[in-house]
């Protein structure tokens, strides 16, 4: 939104670029976006990503600089969060979608599901895949526990924070 006039002309430093690409490769970075003044570098590597689901647990919100304002708190779906905190037996713990996309319960329609009710998961267990732009992102549980309910159907669109699974730790 800054409508500032651009100033100065800097040629691209290809050596730095080479360094950066190597760094990305070494550390498995998929995207780098650098900006300074009116110079911008944007680099992307690969396509397949592994995302971690957001475990919905009764969490203690550490005070932040802007702790008083509800906006900071809004970043967790407030209703779910509150009911979980107030009555853990009612809603239970949930694993929520870490992104927007289409939910798939199995790697392929004929394959068995990643998990089903009763499955025991660790943080690294892939629980589903979420498709974005034809790319299927494998979603890891992010928590340890036993799946007690699957809350969305394969092929459903999910938003960021949509509860996907209920589990017991």
């Amino acid at each position: 939104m800054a409508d500032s006039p651009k100033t100065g002309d800097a040629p691209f430093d290809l050596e730095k670029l080479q360094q950066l690409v190597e760094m990305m490769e070494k550390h498995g970075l998929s995207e780098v976006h650098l900006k300074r003044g009116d110079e911008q570098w944007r680099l992307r590597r690969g396509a397949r990503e592994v995302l971690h689901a957001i475990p919905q647990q009764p969490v203690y919100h550490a005070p932040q600089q802007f702790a008083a304002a509800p906006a900071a708190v809004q970043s967790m779906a407030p209703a779910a969060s509150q009911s979980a905190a107030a009555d853990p037996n009612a809603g239970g713990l949930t694993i929520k979608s870490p992104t927007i996309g289409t939910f798939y319960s199995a790697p392929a329609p004929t394959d068995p599901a990643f998990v089903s009710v009763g499955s025991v998961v660790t943080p690294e267990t892939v629980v589903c895949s979420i498709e974005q732009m034809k790319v299927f992102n494998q979603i890891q549980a992010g928590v340890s526990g036993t799946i007690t309910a699957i809350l969305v159907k394969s092929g459903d669109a999910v938003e960021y924070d949509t509860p996907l699974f209920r589990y017991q730790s």
Partner: protein
Amino acid sequence: MFQRILVANRGEIALRIFRACREMGIETVAVCSAADRGADYLKAANESICIGPAAANQSYLVIKNIIAAAEVGNVQAIHPGYGFLSENEHFAEVCRECKIEFIGPSVDAMSKLGDKVSAKELAKQAQVNLVPGSDGLIKSEEEALVIAEKIGYPVLIKATAGGGGKGMRVARNDISLKAGLKSAAMEAEKAFNNAGVYLEKYVENPRHVEVQIIADLHGEVVHLWERDCSSQRRHQKLIEESPAPNLPQSVREDICKAAVRLIQTANYTNAGTVEFIVDKNNQFYFIEVNARIQVEHPVTEMVTGIDLIQQQIKVASGEPLPWKQRNIPCHGSAIEVRINAEDPDLDFRPSPGKITKLRVPGGHGVRWDSHIHEGYVVGPYYDSMIGKLIVHKPSRPEAIACMKRCLDEFVVDGIKTTIPLLKRILNHTAFVEGKMDTTFIEQQLLAK
């Protein structure tokens, strides 16, 4: 025409686009971060999809999340608004690869105008003035003196690797030029390990004047007159207006025609803004093209009566422009102020928080574009602008009087805003007389 559009933005510009679409009978899909989820303005959209956490680089800036939302939301086009991904060529490209129209210019035009060197090349082709200077690095003192003679003093010595004012000198005659060349080169060598310097005409206290353009897919390009956006603080526009005050009619027409030539040369389509600086003698120099809708587009809408957002959508869907240049009027005078949630007493630091009381002015000649309301919480995550107040009156003095009474009526409790600063600007002689330049707020109004 599109039946369903996704708006890849938030806040006031998202609401602006939802409204424009609703009036055209087009459905809208909103995207929101977790911080904006449930916000009132989202009700103006037909559907709302949460695309990520509060941080913009995990939500509004993530191309694949936006495209996924567009696919899930079943839209035919995406309006990017301003800021965020609006000038991102890669985003425009991905949209179109996914068979979703990006409501904006072609990727080719974006990249040609986005690159400084090719933009300057286009300007030369279109016979649009650039700030004159050396065509590259200065090789000798003699060469510098010849160039300075040609472009006229004062000149600016700039380090090619420069930044932050380092290696920069203003020279007003041959002696200071010779001295400046040496010291600038030395300073640049030290700071950037690169002593290369070049020369440019130094435009003192320039005005910022920009021309609104819209072009259809059939080769028709029109301008919607100019805006003066000289009232800036640290390159941030605070007040914009149309027409530019104290700009002779012949200059207005020349600057608008220059903008049209550039846009035609670039084969640019959809809405865009060609930015110029104007010196004391009303000489104007091309600076850059903003390849998107601008924050300040409403002042142009007021004087022309044209809905720019609706026109962007029509052009993107292939409709030809409905008017010729001669049919585009410029009635009266329009002024916009940006209301930012910032604390003028703390160096304009963002001032997030809950709006506990809000009284927005209204009445004759007054337009309010904003997503806020009493009880709205201004978060710390995004731009601090919370609304735009626009007035439109038959003359500039009447527009100023109207804006002053509006700001007097305005009440925003719970957060700090730029309203006190805006009041000071509106009462400042330079502004009242229409003689502001891009430096007057910092050098005169805010100087201790």
